[in-house]
């Protein structure tokens, strides 16, 4: 056996779908879907033209809203036969444009697959359809003392199918893990219309473990039709410590000291002064406004365990130079501490006409360095940036404030953002911790990965979807695009859809 060349049809270049025949497509789809599940008139399509990243818009040819897996299979078989791009969509709260439609494609909304099929309290698992909202799972499990641990801040709206597509995080993932750590099984349909189950109800599955490949694959490998999640016993108690610092570097060091002391807090978040001031005016959480940075550190467990951990955390914070420390006295106060952090996004929207949200992750020890670099960039670009961080896991959400109506402002914000992302990679981190690449960060993929790595990603894609029909153009850049990167600057954006929804 010699060295096998690429599989037939393999390409790392952009594919041309301009030959798609809308009339033929609609005719075929209308044979497998009721009229209420098929939108193709111009006036019905605009609600689907973007996701949470609303500055990039594209009207699709067709939107389908299947109600059963059988219909999903039929839709995918038609799209495969007619070589039509398919963009899967959950609640449309994604921040990186992963669900932005394709000009010649179908948007496959999973919003009507929204049944909770089973809550098995004894086995601590829930079987749900992809359109079920993240929070709805925890609500359904609550009577059994259980919950679904990953809690992206958009959890009141975002769906579990979207969480699987993005491998979503949240504010508690340092201790409880990301979406991938809380999944047992994902059932999906390939572009060929084959039903495949990734993972199993056991703790592992035979063969290659494809669950981590599907999770976070941004709708590029298969369409999710059913998700089995692990449910976690609710801790008896949670308490939160709020600490104020007169220096961001000291706050960053405090984070490292807590972790180094062997403590894995349930949540560990940081906000800089600008962010604190912005959210305080919005939600009145009672944050100290004179601090350069505040930390929120949550402990959960048995009352004895929480008391022990809070004691240790308090001592470490004092030792690290905290100028003020508050411990939540009751659940209402704990939720108030968190309210501000979770409202950072809408708060930014209140103080600035536009903002550009970053999502890099860096090693924790570089937090102080990154913050200082961002301060210098604020001067360099003459633009404000407020910073909220999942400090425990090094995931940063700097929000660059700008006014798109001011000439040049958007370009400046983009340059500012690009510098932060590139610094994230240079500091040993990544361009995206939890929001995904989508279309938004597709150029920066070229700075994080080498050409052979990008080609390997295209090969993985082709292993599942040889014709490149699932979400084409997203997540993995073409080699041409990487070659052009530097000359070309994509429009950086800020989410405007769902402006009131808490984020991150």
């Amino acid at each position: 056996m010699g060295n096998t060349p690429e599989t037939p049809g393999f390409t790392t270049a952009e594919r041309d779908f301009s030959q798609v025949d809308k009339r033929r497509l609609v005719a075929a789809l209308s044979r497998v879907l009721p009229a209420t599940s098929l939108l193709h008139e111009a006036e019905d399509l605009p609600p689907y033209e973007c996701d949470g990243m609303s500055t990039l818009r594209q009207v699709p040819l067709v939107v389908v809203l299947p109600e059963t897996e059988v219909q999903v299979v039929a839709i995918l078989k038609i799209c495969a036969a007619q070589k039509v791009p398919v963009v899967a969509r959950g609640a449309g709260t994604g921040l990186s444009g992963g669900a932005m439609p394709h000009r010649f494609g179908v948007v496959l909304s999973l919003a009507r697959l929204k049944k909770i099929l089973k809550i098995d309290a004894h086995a601590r698992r829930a079987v749900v359809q992809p359109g079920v909202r993240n929070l709805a799972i925890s609500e359904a499990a609550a009577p059994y003392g259980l919950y679904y641990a990953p809690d992206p801040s958009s959890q009141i709206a975002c769906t579990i199918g979207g969480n699987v597509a993005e491998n979503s995080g949240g504010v508690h993932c340092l201790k409880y893990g990301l979406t991938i750590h809380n999944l047992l099984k994902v059932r999906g349909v390939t572009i060929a219309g084959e039903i495949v189950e990734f993972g199993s109800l056991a703790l592992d599955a035979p063969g290659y473990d494809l669950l981590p490949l599907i999770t976070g694959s941004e709708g590029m490998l298969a369409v999710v039709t059913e998700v089995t999640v692990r449910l976690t016993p609710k801790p008896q108690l949670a308490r939160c410590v709020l600490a104020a610092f007169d220096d961001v570097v000291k706050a960053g060091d405090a984070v490292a000291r807590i972790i180094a002391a062997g403590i894995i807090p349930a949540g560990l978040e940081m906000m800089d002064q600008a962010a604190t001031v912005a959210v305080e005016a919005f939600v009145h959480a009672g944050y100290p406004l004179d601090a350069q940075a505040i930390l929120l550190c949550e402990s959960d467990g048995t009352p004895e365990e929480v008391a022990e951990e809070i004691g240790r955390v308090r001592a470490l914070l004092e030792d690290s130079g905290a100028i003020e420390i508050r411990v939540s006295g009751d659940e209402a106060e704990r939720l108030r501490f968190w309210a501000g952090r979770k409202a950072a996004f809408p708060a930014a929207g209140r103080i600035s006409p536009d903002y550009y949200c970053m999502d890099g992750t860096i090693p924790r020890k570089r937090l102080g360095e990154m913050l200082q670099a961002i301060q210098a960039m604020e001067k360099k670009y003459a633009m404000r940036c407020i910073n909220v961080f999942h400090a425990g896991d090094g995931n940063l959400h700097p929000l660059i404030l700008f006014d798109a109506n001011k000439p040049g402002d958007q370009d400046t914000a983009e340059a500012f953002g690009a510098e932060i992302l590139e610094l994230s990679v240079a500091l040993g981190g990544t361009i995206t911790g939890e929001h995904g690449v989508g279309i938004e960060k597709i150029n920066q993929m070229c700075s994080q990965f080498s050409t052979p790595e990008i080609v390997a990603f295209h090969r993985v894609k082709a292993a599942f979807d040889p014709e490149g029909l699932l979400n084409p153009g997203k997540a993995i850049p073409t080699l041409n695009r990487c070659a052009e990167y530097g000359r070309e600057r994509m429009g950086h954006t800020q989410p405007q859809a769902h402006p009131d929804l808490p984020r991150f």
Partner: protein
Amino acid sequence: MNDLIHAWSERIRAASADGRSLHIRGGGSKDFYGRPAVGDLLDTRMCSGIVNYEPSELVVTARAGTPLAELEATLAARGQMLAFEPPHFALGSTVGGCVAAGLAGPRRAAVGGVRDFVLGARMIDGRGELLHFGGEVMKNVAGYDVSRVLAGSLGTLGLIVEVSLKVLPRPVAEVTLRFAMDEAAALHQLNVWGGQPLPVSASAWHGGVLTLRLSGAAAAVDAASARLGGEQIPPEAADNFWRGLRDHTDSFFQVDAPMWRLSVPGDALAASLPGEQLVEWGGAQRWLCSVAPAKEVRARTEALGGHATLFRHGERSGAVFHPLPAALMALQRNLKRAFDPAGILNPGRMYEGL
């Protein structure tokens, strides 16, 4: 080290061109596992050493040939551990072998498996390309999560050169309790406890005795052990017991008969297959020493919602791992081809044709 990596790349490139299989191997502690290895030996132990370790980052990066014992000792000196408690099975097991085999020990059900702790990897694919996936940070969704797929791939997708693993603090307190209980009662009880916020970190049932380990903050372990009762085992005996399970030095495993590993939903009923059985992972892993026909073992395990692996001994040239549905097998073949088009890396170690 770059010279070595370059030499390996060249060697894989040449092997690929010639269609000559390579048998990638670390310490050989898991030679018994999977289907028989074929091809020219590529020994990873030359590529050894911890590349980066900062306890406050909860990440360690080590080269594939680093002895697992060395890595664990380094972590222990800073009060940390590989939380998935990987089996060593024998002296000399390596970090690369640990990830490639994807096997986890007693703490698996409580904290996650090997793949849950893989953050990144450098590997050489079947074309001889050095590729880096993931990284050293906890949250990273740039690109497909290939590094986690390497866990359990038995070296068939690439030569692992270096891995980054998330590490965790060692628990402050640990207590092991024992209860007399039949299998059905133990399975039920483990699931009931699993639904409560208890610091259970390991469990094992065998021969009418349920052994339970609690780990965590002293206050939590004390409160739970007072509540659960049972007979407390002295710490040293307890450590030996869990290590015996982890490394299969426990007398249960000292047999020549086929040893099956049944991976089933934790709430599955008793397997009720002929032979001796030991239950771990809150019911989700069941070791079965049995001469029952493979067909019978697989059919029963499947009926319980799980899959069966002929873990040790028995006829190893046939199907060792559980057969896959056709559509899933096709995806696995495609993935193998994507990384190793000539099919030269540990071919057939997992399944025929992979």
